[in-house]
């Protein structure tokens, strides 16, 4: 172990219990990778999130879900049926010494088991309980069912994403991919939990955090709400670029290698910018007329904008590989980038320089795999994947016997009875 490895993450010493499905597992990962001791408590047989693909070697198995692998790093896992008295009793003992409980069960479910905040905090007043649910603990939609797609619709994401009419006539609003409703909810839940923990360092008291994924999504559309509140505008959807009150110039151009480049040019054109564009084009010997003095007149630039963007910029990018355009443009101060697929990222040398990719050891397979790393480098208390996602019930013995003093015989009996 190197010296750096011995420095603890910023959340070291925190015990987190996670009762979370696909809605909350990312938030638990955020805490675990920053050093918290996260114990994931799954129903016997494992969380439904284990049934989400893709699977390792495309063989479906609760221990081979890559989605589960990714979202459950740096956690230990036990199985407990909270609907049994034995399960509740063991949960209660774990809860009595936990700092944080993160739960995503239906509103009222924990209370129906006698596990609401009042009961849980009675013997543990410092406890922070975060309920991260689709719509929060109150309101007319409280018990509505949801999914990532549903949240992208009601949150406003879809109303802002789609295509220009000439690209895809009659296109529907398009929900961005990747399961980002859970990310949005997880980010805000993390913020609420950390705020409660900071508060606890002063007051000694915990509290209940009621976090709504719908509200998190509804907050995450940049200026759309302000455009409506201040100007009454409802925005249109455009291919690969910002929603807007009316059509704006394209920003996504096809490069020679079939990749796209995002080139933010519209709204930025002025005489200086035009000359800088000319210099960029000249590096690659691209024929153009941008050095013509007529472009030093802002009025002429305004008139010639379609020629510059849809003609010159588009042709320039069409003649080169996307990454060549990206780096040449950025080196000259242009805020442009390649539209990369995941497979393009592994080669990114900047990410390599930052040590972004992590090797994570899978003892059950006998090899390690490459995982994405940290959003931010904590220079005083490092982010780290401490272990791969737990197998189903992997730490039952370690935690139930090791910490709660359940004997091996009792553990066998509890397993036979479906408690663990």
């Amino acid at each position, binding site marked *: 172990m190197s010296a750096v490895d011995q420095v603890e993450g*910023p*959340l070291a010493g925190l015990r987190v219990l996670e009762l979370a499905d696909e809605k909350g597992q990312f938030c638990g990962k955020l805490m675990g990778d920053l050093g918290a001791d996260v114990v994931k408590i799954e129903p016997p047989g494992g969380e439904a999130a284990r049934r989400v693909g*893709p699977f390792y070697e495309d063989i479906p198995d609760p221990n081979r879900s*890559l989605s589960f692998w*990714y979202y459950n790093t740096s956690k230990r896992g036990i199985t407990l049926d909270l609907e049994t008295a034995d399960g509740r009793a063991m949960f209660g003992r774990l809860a009595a010494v936990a700092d944080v409980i993160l739960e995503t069960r239906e509103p009222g479910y924990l209370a129906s088991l006698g596990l609401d905040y009042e009961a849980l905090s009675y013997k543990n007043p410092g406890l922070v309980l975060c309920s991260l649910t689709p719509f929060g603990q109150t*309101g007319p*939609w*409280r018990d509505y*069912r949801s999914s990532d797609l549903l949240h992208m*619709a009601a949150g406003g994401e879809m109303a*802002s994403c*789609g295509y220009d009419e000439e690209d895809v006539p009659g296109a529907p*609003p*398009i929900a*961005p991919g*990747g399961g980002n409703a859970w*990310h949005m909810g997880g980010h*805000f839940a*993390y*913020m*609420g939990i*950390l*705020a409660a923990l*900071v508060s606890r360092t*002063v*007051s000694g008291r915990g*509290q209940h955090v009621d*976090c709504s994924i*719908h*509200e998190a999504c*509804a*907050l*995450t559309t*940049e*200026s*759309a*709400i302000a455009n*409506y*509140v*201040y*100007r009454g505008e409802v925005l249109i*959807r455009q291919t*690969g*670029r*910002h929603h807007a009150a009316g059509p704006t110039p394209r*920003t996504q151009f096809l490069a020679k290698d079939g990749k796209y480049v*995002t080139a*933010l040019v519209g709204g930025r054109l002025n005489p200086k910018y035009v000359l800088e564009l000319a210099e960029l084009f000249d590096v690659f010997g691209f024929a153009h007329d941008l050095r013509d003095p007529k472009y030093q007149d802002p009025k002429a630039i305004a008139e010639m904008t379609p020629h510059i963007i849809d003609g010159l910029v588009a042709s320039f990018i069409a003649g080169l590989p996307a990454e060549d355009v990206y780096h040449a443009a950025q080196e000259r*101060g242009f805020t*442009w*980038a*390649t*539209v990369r*697929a*995941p497979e393009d*990222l592994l080669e990114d*040398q*900047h990410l390599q320089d*930052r040590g972004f990719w992590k090797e994570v050891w899978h003892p059950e397979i006998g090899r390690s795999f490459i995982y994405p790393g940290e959003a931010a480098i904590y220079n005083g*208390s490092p982010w780290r994947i401490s272990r791969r996602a737990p197998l189903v019930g992997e730490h039952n013995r370690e935690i139930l016997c090791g910490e709660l003093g359940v004997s091996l015989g009792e553990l066998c009996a509890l397993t036979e009875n479906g408690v663990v």
Partner: protein
Amino acid sequence: MSRPRALDGIRVVDFSWVRAGPWATRWLGALGAEIIKIEWPENERGRLPSSTTPHRMEVNLNTSGNFNDTNVNKKSLTLNVRSEKGLAIAKRLIAVSDIVIENFSSRVLQKWGLGYDELVKIKPDIVYVSMSGYGHTGRNHHYTTFGPVAQAASGLTFLSGLPGKPPAGWGWSYMDDTGGMYGAMCALTGLYHRNRTGKGQHIDQSQMVSAVPLNGPALLDLTVNGRGSKRAGFPPGNRAHWPGTPMVNNYRGPTVAPHNAYRTAPGGYNDWCVIVCANDDEWQKLVEVMGRPELRDDARFGTVAARLEHQDALDELIEAWTTTLGKYEVTERCQTAGVRALPVQSAEDRVEHDPQLAHRGMYQELDHAALGRHKVQNAPFRLSETPVFNHAASPLIGEHTREVVEGLLGFSHEDLRAGFDDGTFWPTKRQRLAYHEEMLR
């Protein structure tokens, strides 16, 4: 006595501008921290240009609606940090603060003498959060981003769209919002760590890099299974799977059908509703809601596999029903029966028509000195003991200069006047605003 707030007594020096950084500090302010925003009117890029100034109102430094929503809960100090005197005042402020947040390009603040190495000498336990485009290390640290560029470079843009079409991407700077979230998360994490250990630190958050972990399952499919995302049927639009292409998971949950957006009455631009059936049971409920019980026995739709295969026919018959109803009506009928459905909502829908957001008090009005009374967005979480709320509209530029300089830092009124005259608190050649005259009297 008012109830305590989570971040009572915490002071944040906020050098951030445009969107991502200010979005971060906005939340720290809602949690009760005192946010002192350092601004300079000559190179301000969050207040201007403004495309959210109300019609018939002059566009100026104090009339951007989006700035207002992004900068609630803050004080504004105008300070020329690039002068020796201004730099000294900034350091005096940092010496009595807990957190510094900045979102300049990498190494700009270091060049001004405000890097972590300098600030730790003034305030040893300072929590210093840098929010830059590409981070402070790595060969491309000097590259610049706006949201769309961070989204493109990180793989986020590619994962959204219809198969065989250009990426639809994200219709806004998702990574300004999300980069802002990470800025706030880093600040809270650093603060928690400081309170426990007494140690501050520098946290180097990158907008582009922060977006990459949001593609986790797609990246593991690549690194573990060797499967890239440039493949037939990906991305599958709003569906979980595109018919006629290889059956592989598309990184948005289980592979099921129906899973799509459907037009609703009266057929306007945002008259759409999404419906998802996660299993056979939900599908059976949906056919009842649609008044098409005969579909129960239709072999084309009887199993998940069959529905996935016959999605075109499936979507067509669902849309034949949804187009007869409004999107809120479809939602209510489906949800009452236990079927997953929600309306596509525009900003207007969210503010005016969403009963859940209304119930939860998502948009509450605040008075702003120039813009008047308007709704601003509230936090999506409730803390039972330390309330989270917006307590003030965004500041006018330099509105709190006197309060901070005299009240907090203990300079005299004559010092304040001298600082206005020598260009420390306002550019000498720039017209002062009415409230400047007031504070200088």
